Structure formats: structure tokens, C-alpha cells
């Protein structure tokens, strides 16, 4: 950590310039709640820290015609305070608001939570279920990528050298649809998810499920978008049988590890339990919309 | 005569397994001195982290505590605390 440099550019262009110049030795910092811990532990090999909190695009939430653009550096507390996003995507907000303590909430960002690359990131399954996409800026301009395509393995992203995450796009909530995020931790707070489940579903007037996306966190090297879970729901009235099929699909999609936070057996079983519970909540919300 | 009781492992290693001993003496030092005559090396062993209880009263450091003729004297592990 000798001679670590710091810069806080005010435009996306500048960030790209610095990142490109640093040839992968620069680290983007938003809330810093993961980055600084790694820095302290000497696990961070970087020549410069690029603080992106002074770029307005990364700090604002914008209502567009067909959805919301959310800056990558927006904190959990800021997103939680945004009424429209809360109303449209409560599951997404729930996820981000579960990250850490009140102190962490004032700092930790949606973009950091994703790009840190942890399989257990609470903010991610909700966004995958919501079908959110990422706007990536780089030397070759910008590109749009689905959230589930960003993290490729623990701690690794698909961002190329010189690229960074500018913002997320959340589509408008369709009629009769709802979402939810649930996670399991051993305590009531301050833990990393042992299992996390994000569910977003749409029903028709008769209450039949017409569309669904189910995402699991902390049960595989990266957060998963599980088609079989969706298939278990789509075309059903989300009755007991559908829910049983869903929770089996969730459990069998798991490919977890044994570690200090949970066992393979435990994660596999609880993934099924939470998938069912999250779906029930999402369904309640869908009926209200 | 005071009734002296020793820890099992001490009795084993120094007193042929005999835990109970009737000893006369006006204080612990005197009593230990008499036991030492009978069981050489016992005094040093008793000084290795053992407390003494005289009629229910525990003393972590002992030497001159008074002993009545009918006192019950127990040697037991010294007590540390958090």
C-alpha cells in the first residue's frame, strides 16, 4: 500500500482516462465500505483510488419514461428514501437496505455491492429478478449489460480494463406484478447473507402467473438467475404445488460451499424455504398493483 | 484435632491415597508442618496453587490462619476470576 494515490474526478470521461492510464492498478470507490476493509487488511493491490462520488450521474436517481436510472454510487439510505422506486421495486430496495448497519447504509452503494463481486451481495438478486441492466462506460464508449452478466466469479467482473459501472436501469413495474427479497442471517443484523432470494412475478386478472424471475444469492460462485424456478410458477396460480415445485427447483439450483457462514446442506434447504416465502410476499404485492 | 482433607490427586501422590488426616495445631502453618513430617514434600505440593478452606471460609493465600481443635480444613484448587 506504499504511495497510494487518490483522485475524485467530476466526469465519467475523466474516470475512464484515469482507469485506462492506470492499466488495471486503479480501484473505483463509491461508498468504500468493502474497499476500505480490503485496503486495511492489505488485500488491496492498487496504485490509485478513484472516488466517483463527485460525479452527478453516479449520484442521482432519474425517473425516465420507461423506468428509473439509478446512479451506481447511490447509497442504500438514498435509494430507501426515494418514494417512487420504493413503490415500483420494493424488493430491490429491501435488498440494498439490508446491507450492513445504519452507518453502512449511509455509504454502501448499489454499484459497489455488485462490482465487489461477492456471491452473497444483498443488493444483487433483487436487481436480477427485476431485470435491471447496467450502463458501463469505457475507452470504447458505453454499453448496456444485464446485471447477471457483470460478476463472473467471486471478486471478478466482466468489466474490461478502463471500464466502470455508471448506472443501473430499472424498467417500469408492469401491471399486476410485484417483487420481494429475503435473506437468511444467523443474527437479526450485521451478517452476510447465508442465502438470499429475489423474486419478481406478474399475474393476469385470473391470478395466473404470466411472468417470473427468481434469483438466488450466496448459494453459488455468483448470484444465479434460475429459470426452473420461474418455470415452476409461470402458468400456475401459484398454488401449493407450484410453491413446492419452486422450492425444489431453488434447492436443486444451488451449488454452494461449506464455510464459516453455513453448510452446503443448510444453504440448499433454506434456499427452497426462502424462495417460497419471497414468492408469497411478491404475490401479495402483485395482487395489490 | 482438626479434620484435614486433601485433594484426591495430592493424597495419591504424597499420602498413599489417604485423603483425611486428623492433625492438631493452632494455625495452618503448624498443621502443614506436622503433615510434612509425616509426608515429606507435601508442603511444597500444597503451595502449588492450592487454597485452603477452614470451616467453610476460603483463603487463597494461607499461612497463619487460625484453626480450632474441631475445625474442618479442606485444601482445594485456588480460584481465579474473570
Amino acid at each position, binding site marked *: *500500500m*506504499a504511495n497510494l494515490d487518490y483522485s475524485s474526478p467530476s466526469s465519467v470521461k475523466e474516470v475512464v482516462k484515469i482507469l485506462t492510464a492506470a492499466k488495471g492498478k486503479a480501484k473505483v470507490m463509491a461508498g468504500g465500505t468493502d474497499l476500505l476493509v480490503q485496503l486495511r*487488511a*492489505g488485500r488491496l493491490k492498487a496504485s490509485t483510488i478513484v472516488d466517483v462520488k463527485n460525479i452527478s450521474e453516479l449520484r442521482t436517481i432519474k425517473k425516465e419514461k420507461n423506468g428509473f436510472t439509478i446512479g451506481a454510487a447511490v447509497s442504500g439510505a438514498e435509494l430507501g428514501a426515494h418514494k417512487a422506486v420504493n413503490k415500483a421495486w420494493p424488493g430491490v430496495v429491501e435488498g440494498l437496505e439490508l446491507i450492513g448497519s445504519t452507518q453502512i447504509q449511509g455509504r454502501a452503494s448499489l454499484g459497489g455491492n455488485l462490482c465487489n463481486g461477492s456471491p452473497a451481495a444483498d443488493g444483487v438478486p433483487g436487481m436480477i429478478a427485476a431485470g435491471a441492466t447496467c450502463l458501463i462506460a469505457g475507452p470504447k464508449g458505453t454499453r448496456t449489460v444485464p446485471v447477471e452478466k457483470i460478476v463472473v466469479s467471486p471478486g471478478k467482473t466482466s468489466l474490461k480494463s478502463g471500464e466502470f459501472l455508471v448506472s443501473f436501469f430499472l424498467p417500469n413495474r408492469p401491471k399486476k406484478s410485484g417483487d420481494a427479497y429475503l435473506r*437468511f442471517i*444467523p*443474527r*437479526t*443484523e*450485521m*451478517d*452476510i447473507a*447465508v442465502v438470499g432470494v429475489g423474486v419478481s412475478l406478474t399475474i393476469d386478472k385470473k391470478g395466473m402467473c404470466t411472468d417470473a424471475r427468481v434469483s438466488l444469492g450466496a448459494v453459488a460462485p455468483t448470484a444465479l438467475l434460475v429459470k426452473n424456478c420461474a418455470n415452476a410458477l409461470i402458468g400456475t396460480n401459484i398454488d401449493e404445488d407450484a410453491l413446492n415445485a419452486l422450492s425444489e427447483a431453488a434447492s436443486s439450483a444451488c451449488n454452494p460451499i461449506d*464455510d*464459516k*457462514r*453455513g*453448510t452446503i*446442506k*443448510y444453504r440448499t*434447504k*433454506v434456499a427452497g*424455504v426462502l424462495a417460497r416465502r419471497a414468492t408469497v410476499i411478491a404475490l401479495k404485492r402483485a395482487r395489490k398493483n | 484435632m482438626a479434620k484435614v*482433607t486433601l*485433594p*484426591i*490427586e495430592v493424597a*495419591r*501422590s504424597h499420602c498413599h*491415597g489417604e485423603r483425611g488426616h486428623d492433625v492438631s495445631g493452632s494455625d495452618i502453618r503448624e498443621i502443614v508442618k506436622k503433615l510434612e513430617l509425616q509426608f515429606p514434600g507435601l508442603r511444597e505440593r500444597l*503451595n*502449588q*496453587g492450592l487454597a485452603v*478452606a477452614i*470451616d*467453610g*471460609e*476460603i*483463603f*487463597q*493465600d494461607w499461612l497463619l490462619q487460625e484453626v480450632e481443635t474441631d475445625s*474442618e480444613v*479442606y485444601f*482445594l*484448587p*485456588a*480460584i*481465579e*476470576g*474473570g
Partner: protein
Amino acid sequence: MGNEKDHLEAIEGKEKFRYIGTSPIRPDGVDKVTGRANFGADFTANGMIHGRVVRSPHAHAKIKSINIEKALKMKGVKAIVTGQDFPKIDPSDKVVGEVVVSFYDMSQNVIARDKVFYDGHAVAAVAATSIKIAEEAAALIEIEYEVLPAVMTVIDAMKKNAPVLHKGMKTEGMDPVPKRSSNVASRAELKLGNATEAFKDADVIVERDYTAQTVHQGYIEPHACVAEVSADGMATIWSSSQGQFMVRAFVAKLCAMNASKIKVIPSEIGGGFGGKTKVYLEPLALLLSRQSGRPVKMVMTREEVLRATGPTSGGHARAKIGAKKDGTLVAAELEMEYEAGAFAGSPVKLGCMTGFAPYNLKHVSCIGWDVVVNRPQAAAYRAPGAPVAAFAVESAMDELADTLGIDPLELRIKNAAVEGTQAPYGVKFPKIGCLETLRQAKATEHYNMPLGPNQGRGVASGFWFNIGGQSSASVMVNPDGTVIVATGSPDIGGSRASMALMAAEVLGIDYDNIKPLVADTESVPFSDLTGGSRVTFATGKAVVEAAEDAVNDMKRRAAKVWDVDIDQVEWKDGIATCIETDIHKPMTIAEIAAMAGKTGGAISGKANINAKGAGAAFATHICDVEVDPETGYVQVLRYTAVQDVGTAIHPAYVEGQMQGGAVQGIGWALNEEYVYSKDGQLQNTGFLDYRVPVASDMPMIDTVIVEVPNPGHPYGVRGVGEVPIVPPLGAVANAVSHAIGIRMADLPMSPPKILATIDAAD
């Protein structure tokens, strides 16, 4: 029934008190709520440099070589020490104080010599002009290890061909003493009557194996100190510990200095719970300072605290209890193996002594094995040794109650220890409040509340001896009649307030006119460390005697002034009055103090005592939980702690001790544990994964203070701080067992473990 009478006595006694039993604001309070109080890491000295420790990444290894050349060459590096820089200490070098301390082991624990015994074991220390340089230099120290297989649990450590940590360790207390070296340091046995025979008379016998994990005290303040050795060899140490005299004695021994050359100044202490009754950094800082000629500050990181400082012993226990159909206990057995960590000295003996103490048993046998493993050396933690034993015994009592269909509190009341009961360690109890806590627990609204689905209620009792020991106090009367009370006992939980209250009671002056202070090692005579729940009892006793000494001095002065005999002078409410005649106007403490010059100089009182008469503490806890059968998550719904405290000097802080100890016990029962890799590297080195209870995990902790005065203390004080952590492990385990209908005998009861238990059952 004596208990009602005792109560009346206690209450009558209370009415006689003017200050005792009130809860005024603690004297050090304002500094602590405004950020002004100085804790271990808050001190700085002129010219100060910073020390860092190089720690072993291996759980068990030979140190083949240490090369400090590169590090020494670094700009800003001022000193580097390794084990070779410390004096050699003879293996037989032990002292008897509160415990036997092996200075040989202590010295190796502070810094490794030829072998490292656990992940995080200190191997070298560097001092440099900045923390950053010290850290970089530490990384340049080259250490060559020969890695050895590690043993992490008592079960593995006791296997026949287990790797041996310490060559020459022969199990003490065996007959005959074995020839082979092993990891079993000692065997201790307690016996009353003949349990084996007595079990034959039992109608019902319950027997089961229990395991509890090693846990950390979890104080929020990491260890920290500053050491300065001047050119003439005089050393000053500022440090956060449970005993400035303990630090002086240990550092003197480990650094081969005499005590008069070491001054230890206690800082405020940010929690200890027993974990700060040892030295870790102080000897390293002292040698670094001697080598560099600069004051050296050392502060541990949280990771270092968890990897290298005192956890308390976990272990394995087998409890067996036999009873008649009517619930009368006839015989009991307890066999336990405790993890001592890397060096001998687990509190297993204390576990054997305390486990069955709440019960009246004629036939008991307790066997304890002290076992070394490749983990940090165990340190004391609230009632050392008692919680794990109580977990096994109280679970067995609960199982017995279920089997017999008797209310678990009734079963305990039927067999409760009372005055005259012989404890398993032989001693006959004097006046104790075991029965009273059980009766009051049974009478609580909590115990009689209905439960919902997936909910369970558990109760458990606990015992702790409490201890006396050496305490010193001096009471100095200022010229204006205000008073300074100096003791040598660090204030961890508000003891300054208790000291001031007891002095106020004796002197008859306002609490606010008394300033209690924790003095350094050169300003007050020797005192044992703060621990074992001894301060309010023993140091309090010293304060009372010192205050009485000062009162006598002032009566003497008044007698002089009035030219009467001293026994003509009466002291009440801070005023001296002449009994004989009313021609002499009564004199206030201020008036007497103002005349001190005329009557023979400054007024003071002192007392240096080895306090006897410590009164045993008993507690009974009630816990309600709800278990999520699909995830194994446990929510503590309600918790009540009932405890005999003798006399509550400062009731609010008494409650605080009961609540804090209970919550630590709940953490031990539910989520706290050390997670090691198979090679013995600690995996959870921070508060993120070493899961102490957070505010949202806990309900309010109800407290019921029972007061059966301790005849051994002028105000009836018993120790308060230790026993609250004894019952919770059993109380929570019994509650969870009832909630899921399966006996939980393995701690912590983390969600994966509970779910696995539930699944295995259906």
C-alpha cells in the same frame, strides 16, 4: 424457612443506610459520555514511535530461522525484538497468587521461542516512526517454519497418537504418572461419598454428552499500551488492564527487572471480563522502548485480539444424575475435558467444583482433564470454568425433570443447597441464597406466562464462589473537608461509584464530596487485580476500613481540641459531637479538616487487607425462545435473571452486571464460536463473523435482585459480576430443546445445527 427472615434483615439494614442502595451518577461518567476519558489507545507520549507484532500464520510449527536484516535496514525502523531478546525462564518458575502462573509458559505465549503453538502466535515485534513503516518492516522479517500437524480439539488432542505440543508434558494427578508425553496437562478429581454405589438406589438416571465451544470475551477495546524506558533503566507503562500490579509483576518477571523500576499507570479499561488479566503487548513494548530509547505505543487490531488473546475454554462434558421417583437426587457424576489452548491451565478444576454446587448431594464424583490444543492460551472469562459445567448439569437437571414429570424449578427447589450443605469441593456453605433465587424465579410473572407454537421455556441455575484477596485503599481528607479515596483496583463496570458510596456511608458526608480514583503502582500499596467479582467486596471492605481509620483520626483531633477523652467523641453524619457535655460546639468534617495543621497535620486513613469472608453467589435464569422450524433461527423472546447479590450497593450497576453477563451467555449459547480451517487458521477474525449479540437480537433483560446479606462483609456485599454468565447456556439450551422437542447438547445452537437436528429427527 430462613429466607423470609434474611429478607427482613436485608431490608431493615437498607433502611439504616443513607447512601448505600442509591444509584447516583458515576464519578467518571461525564468523561465517558463526552469522549474525554482516556482508554488504552488514547495515550500519546512525546517522541513516541509505533510497534507492530509479526504473528505466525501456522497453528503448529518449528521456527527454523528468523532474519531481521532487511527490516532493520528500512528507514524509520528503530527496534526489532524476537524471543531471543527475552531472558530465559526456568520451567519450574511459578508463583502462587490468585492462580499458579507458569512464567515459562507466559513468556513463550508473549513471544514464541523455538516453536509456534497457534495461528497468530507472536514471533517478532518491530518499532518504527510510523505504523505504516512498522507494518512494512514487519512484512520484511523473514521467518522459516517447519510446519507440524495441528490438534484443534480436545477429542483429537487426547487420541493415542496425537501430535504432542509440549515434549515432556506428563499428565499430573495420574497414579502412576504416565511415562509418555501427551497433550493432557493434568487430571483433577473431586469426590463426596460414593457415587458409583449410590446410583444403585436411583429410580431414574439421566446421562448425556455435551460440548461447548471456545469463545472470546469480546471486549470492544483492543489491547493497547505505551511503554517508555528512560536512559537510567526506569520504565513507565500506560496500559489498559484489569490490574496495574498484575502488569508490573508479570513484566518484571518476563523482562528480568525489579518491580521498583517499573511504574504502571492504568488507563480506563474498555472491557475485560477476565481477558485483561494477562499481558501480551507490555513486555514487547518495553523491550522495544529499551532498544530504541523512545516511548513505544502498541495497539492490537481486532484480528489480533481474536487470533492471539485469551478465549475461554470450550470443551466436552459428560453429566450423569440419579434420582428417586419423588425427585430427590441420590448421586451425580461429571467428567469434563477442557481446551486449555496452547499452554496448560484451563479452568476445568473450577468447572468440577461449581457444576453441582447449587444442589444438596451426598454422593458426587467430578473428574476434569486439562488438555492443550493449537489455539491461543485460554484466559479467564466471567466465572472461569463454571458455564460449561453448568450447561451440562443444568441440561441434565432439565432432562431429569422432563423424565420425572416434575416442574424444573420444583426439582431444583427440592434439592437446593442451603446453609450447611456440603459443596462438591468439600466446603460446608455458610448463609447462601440459592433457595431464595429459585423461589423468586418461580414467583415471577414471566415463569407463569403461557407459550405459543414453536416456543419453549428453559430455566437453569448457576453458582460462583466469589473471592476476596488483597486490596488497599487510602482515604485522604482535604483541608476543605472533601475526601479522596484511592484504590488499586481498575474500574471496569462502575466500581468507583460503589467505593464512593461505601466511603460516604462511613464518613457520613455527601457522595459528591468524595472523589474515588484508581491509583498507579507507586501511589497505593499492592492490590490484586480486578476479577472474580472481588472489587466491590474486597476493595470495598478496604475502603470501609480506611474510612473508619480516617474517622478515628478525626475523632482524635476533635478530642484534642475539646481536651476530652476520644471515647467522649461521637461521629455521625460527618459531624463530631462531644457526648459528655454540650459546652463544645459539634465540629463538621470541614471544620476538623481546617484545623488539621493545629492538631497534628494532614488527616487520612488507610487499609491494606487480604479480604476474607467472600460470599457465594447463586443465580437462576428463565429464557423463552421461538424457533423457526424451517430455518433453525432462534429468537429470544423473553429473559429474566434472578440473583442473590447479598446487598446491592449501586442497584443500577448490579442490574447492569446481571444483564450484561446474561447476554454474553446467550451469545455463547446461540452463535459465538471460533471457526478454524483444517490446518488451524482462524477463519472468523472480526466481529462480522465472530457473532456477538447485537441490540436487535435481544429483548429487555428482566432482573430480580435477591438480597441475602453476606455475613462476611460489613454491608452484606456478595460479588455480582461473575455468576450472571453461568446459567444462560443451560437456560437457552433447555428453552430451545423444549421448543423443538429434541435435546440440544451441542453449543452453539446455530441455525444450521438446529435445522440438522430437526431434520435428523424426522
